[in-house]
């Protein structure tokens, strides 16, 4: 199958999936207890029955649920995610500001997790019963088991308080006004702790997976062939074995992308990172349905795209999938 056709088909599936996500979330949120009109009225400092009715009419909350859903879906088709009850601004605008910090955080964390995880796994696989392998196993278990907010707080205590290397919170320094490289460096400095916090959970999984995957691949016949050719251990490990061992890691990386975004929510809260996760978290507390739905919609879009990219990279890495006509 041609790659262009493949992408088109996958995007179509992705769109259907996103609509499904919207419908499901819409129903879930409206089934949850709590009335947004109450919250809005509360923010206004109280309201009469008449004002409540006005609020409901303004946001379409007086309509039956299927009608509300239909209006919402047709608005999405025009890239209109509605108005935030809380900020009284278009949700697209809110998300537009918040999506990039999240994408930056998630991608950085994913890169750190994969790169470090694979390196640890590969080193561990060379001596599966050696001390480093044991360290990787213990580190993986602890990293995976520790709650992300706890890891975050521990890192803050270690690297912001005891050894003040990195800032405690935010994406830039409070009064920072620089641009260009200075801005990038300032953001990078702030990014280190949250990105590592988020990466540690996934790092643990990638380390275990690549250790297991490498041990298996190193026993494969083609690795023996590579040795019989006269290749050194470096070329055998990194060219012949690793290229095959990363295939399962790619698969898991795609699947984990959704978890990474939900993990970002907690990390953003701990580090006061101005991303979508915090927006979603706050929106839940504020019963700000349009914002919450918009965030979920965009997050599902990011996951769909990430999965597509994963599959494309998989096709690139494994020729059997590229040519094996499905």
């Amino acid at each position, binding site marked *: 199958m041609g790659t262009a056709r493949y992408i088109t088909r996958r995007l179509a599936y992705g769109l259907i999936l996103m609509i499904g996500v919207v419908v499901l979330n819409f129903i879930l949120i409206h089934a949850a207890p709590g009335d947004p009109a109450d919250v809005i009225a509360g923010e206004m400092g109280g309201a009469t029955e008449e004002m409540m009715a006005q609020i409901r009419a303004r946001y379409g909350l007086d309509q039956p649920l299927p009608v509300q859903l239909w209006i919402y879906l047709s608005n999405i088709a025009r890239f209109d995610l509605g108005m935030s009850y809380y900020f009284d601004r278009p949700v697209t605008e809110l998300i537009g500001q918040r999506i990039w910090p999240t994408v930056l955080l998630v991608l950085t964390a994913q890169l750190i997790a994969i790169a470090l995880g694979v390196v640890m796994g590969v080193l561990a696989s060379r001596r599966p019963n050696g001390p480093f392998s044991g360290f990787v196993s213990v580190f993986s278990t602890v990293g995976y088991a520790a709650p992300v907010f706890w890891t975050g707080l521990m890192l803050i205590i270690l690297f912001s308080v005891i050894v003040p290397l990195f800032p405690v919170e935010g994406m830039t320094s409070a009064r920072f006004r620089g641009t260009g490289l200075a801005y990038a460096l300032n953001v990078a400095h702030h990014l280190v702790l949250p990105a590592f916090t988020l990466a540690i959970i996934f790092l643990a999984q990638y380390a275990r997976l690549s250790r297991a995957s490498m041990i298996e691949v190193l026993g494969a016949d*083609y690795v023996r*062939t590579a*040795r019989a050719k006269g290749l050194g251990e470096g070329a055998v490990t990194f060219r012949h074995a690793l290229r*095959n061992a990363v295939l399962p890691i790619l698969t898991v990386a795609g699947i984990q992308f959704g978890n990474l975004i939900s993990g970002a929510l907690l990390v953003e809260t701990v580090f006061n990172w101005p991303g979508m996760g915090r927006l979603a978290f706050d929106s839940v507390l504020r019963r700000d349905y349009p914002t919450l739905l918009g965030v979920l919609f965009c997050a599902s879009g990011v996951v769909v795209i990430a999965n597509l990219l994963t599959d494309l990279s998989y096709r690139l890495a494994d020729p*059997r999938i590229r040519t*094996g006509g499905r």
Partner: protein
Amino acid sequence: MADPLMSLRDLRVEFDTRHGRVTALSGISLDVMPGETLGIVGESGCGKSITALAMMGLVPNPPGHVTGGQILFQGEDITRAKPRRLRRLRGREIAMIFQEPMTSLNPVFTVGDQIAEAILLHQDVSRAQAEKQVVDLLATVGIPEPARRAKAYPHELSGGMRQRVMIAMAISCRPKLLIADEPTTALDVTVQAQIFDLMRDIQREFGVAIVLITHDMGAIAEMTDRVAVMYAGRIIEQGTSDQILDNPLHPYTRGLIGCIPVLGREAGDAASLPPLAEIPGIVPPLHLLGDGCAFAERCALADDYCRAVRPPLEEKGHPVACHHAGQGVPA
């Protein structure tokens, strides 16, 4: 007589297993002469593949250990060679093809790249020259449209084609010794014959010595000059192919020869010809070997002496390790 190309002298290889340390090869001595074909024959588990890997310095460690003896390649003991020296021998002087062409090629690289890798490693040539050599090599091993096939991935080729690719890779640096570990076991019978033809052609053209490891006496009859029969980590009979095939002395060798189906025999001939024989039982687990002859449990001629005292490899026309060598009806 010329000096041997490779000599194994009393080679011992041991493996760590959950039953403790077991001896996979106990004192193997073999000579491979330049340009000849030596067959090593035996059932699964007799140590023939370990012998092949040892010749490449590739006994997996852990759990394997070469614990004694020498492996002399052109007089140099490769059991004592440094890893760097071994890597220069592998692929360039000693090459190997394996039983499973399906899994012996790396699935994520083109076959051309995999052959070129060996060439670039051992020869001082440019990438373009290496690629040209690859196409020539693929043509030599009888692959049609070699320029196009060089760009194919292993999964796009049949088993026979892949084994030809393995052979092309093995001969890419004109080795002096080619070790073929069951090169045709995984292939169709017609393809087997083609691969053997190819190996003979290559031997004639390049003058390479071949060690053919197999469990198939038919392949021995077709390909080899000399034969070593292995059982439970030892050589139990050794001689020219004619000696072994025409006058097998060890009951085990006779059993193996009895396993060759005779072409043209029909069901009605059953009265005039003995039925296709089989050797009862299996090779005993290495950790359960006692002091006696390892084959005794499966041998019709075995007596208490056989079970108590292991027969040494002795000259009885040709070297054989059996107290009852040559006795009894040939199978």
